[in-house]
């Protein structure tokens, strides 16, 4: 469903952030993108919806060449790629509902969005999603009144209301405590399964990634180093991606049940 061919990004400073990355992701597959800071993980997912303009290479989503699109076409294509951010990236002074509905901006006209007159179907869907992530009661609160975990749930709802084919997830748990991190990862993966969504999740926490995803991609200095199942992540593989370290605790099977059961 998503094909990435020879994707390269060189920043004006001369730094080569991505070097001819090839990747193919089928419908409904959730992958974790791991690698040290500065490996190009953020750049990679931002090149897919062209928040960062790739230098060369090709990105194809459902047969459509994203890299060749003009401004209007790009806006339409971005609707099909929901994005979830590390620091939640909610617009803090807007209400939770406005933040969720902002996911529909690509579908509604300017005047409707200016006066917050969204179609009833959008409003209903926003309520449904807020209920799904457990925040229905918070709809009219301002985003900056929420806790970190709650904000990330709103971020997830905003991405999903776009009705995307693909989720781009940038460090969803980096600002969260371990328990909330697990809940958020579980929520993202469950929702991907329910909606047959593909997702690329940038994540630093290798152990957490292994718990939830079907496939892991390792990136180092802008190049693909590893592509395989979570079980194939051995100490040797982690050493090639991150460098020498004692990896035993990271690759050990973690019992998921000991921390928490329920997703709120």
């Amino acid at each position: 469903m998503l094909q990435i061919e020879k994707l390269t990004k060189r920043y004006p400073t001369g730094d080569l952030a991505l070097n001819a990355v090839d990747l193919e992701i089928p419908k409904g597959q959730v992958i974790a993108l791991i690698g040290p800071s500065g490996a190009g993980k953020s750049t990679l997912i931002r090149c897919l919806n062209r928040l960062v303009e790739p230098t060369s290479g090709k990105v194809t989503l459902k047969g459509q060449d994203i890299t060749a699109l003009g401004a209007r076409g790009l806006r339409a294509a971005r609707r099909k790629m929901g994005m979830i951010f590390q620091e939640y990236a909610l617009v803090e002074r807007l209400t939770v509902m406005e933040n969720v509905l902002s996911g529909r901006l690509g579908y509604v006209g300017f005047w409707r969005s200016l006066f917050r007159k969204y179609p009833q179907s959008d409003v209903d869907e926003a309520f449904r999603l807020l209920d799904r992530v457990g925040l229905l009661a918070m709809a009219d609160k301002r985003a900056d009144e929420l806790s970190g975990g709650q904000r990330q749930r709103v971020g997830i709802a905003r991405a999903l209301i776009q009705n995307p084919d693909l989720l781009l997830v940038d460090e969803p748990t980096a600002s969260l405590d371990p328990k909330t991190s697990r809940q958020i990862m579980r929520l993202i993966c469950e929702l991907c399964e329910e909606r047959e969504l593909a997702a690329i999740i940038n994540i630093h926490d290798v152990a957490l990634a292994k718990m939830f995803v079907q496939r892991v991609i390792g990136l180092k200095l802008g190049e693909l180093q590893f592509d395989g199942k979570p079980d194939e992540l051995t100490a040797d593989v982690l050493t090639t991606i991150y460098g020498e370290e004692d990896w035993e605790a990271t690759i050990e099977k973690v019992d998921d049940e000991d921390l928490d059961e329920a997703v709120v």
Partner: protein
Amino acid sequence: MSDVTLDMRLGTKWRKPHFVKNPALRWGLIIGALVYLVLAVSSIEVNWARVSEGLIRGWNFIIAFASPDFTSRGTDIQEGLIESVIMTITSTIVGIAISIPIGLGAARNIAPLPIYMICRGIVALSRALNEIIVAILMVAIFGFGPLAGFITLSFATIGFLAKLMAEDIEDMDRVQAEAIRSTGSSWLQWIDYGVLPQVLPRLVGLSMYRLDINFRESAVLGLVGAGGIGATLNTAFDRYEFDTAAAILLIIIVTVMCLEYLSGIIRRKVQ
């Protein structure tokens, strides 16, 4: 890392490094500044005979505050005040309306370079020209009266608001705006959802602040013929009616304090 070992540092004193590293340059700057200050102060000429004469006049003016005369020029004061208030409100509203697009254009992180240069140019021009100079020019063009004052204050408001708004936009959280862009929003939607909510509270606060600046300025602009309470004040001074002048100044002070109080309340509400 470096060849400094712990033994070399133990027992030695530690001080915060100087801001200017070179000691000769550092002392040169300090002594140079002191010498300049002494020379500058000694170059001011004071005519003590003139001062002693002026002190009496100044004292009379201050005494007048004890017996301000609101009534003998009552209608003049009232008309001037109403004119000033109208001038202040209209120029602030027009100024804000024009400042918003110019402020957006003057923020480097959202405007393309040519638009940025034009908007920054307008801001620089507006800030470079003092209100009094603009007012003299406007009085020359439009004649005496509040129209000249209104245009002057609108023009000055643009420089003030657009510059501060642009700086606020440049300091905004980039990721919040990026998130809105990633939903496939158009440019205007992006401004409406991603940019304006971040800068709106400050914009409201600055607008209220500008409202009271404009009121104070309107009192000064009257001195060069641009209408308002300043014209009444000017007339009072010309006639040596210090008690009427004192009344006008008291009204200006009270009005500015009221605006200050009001803007405090509004700013707290929008935060």
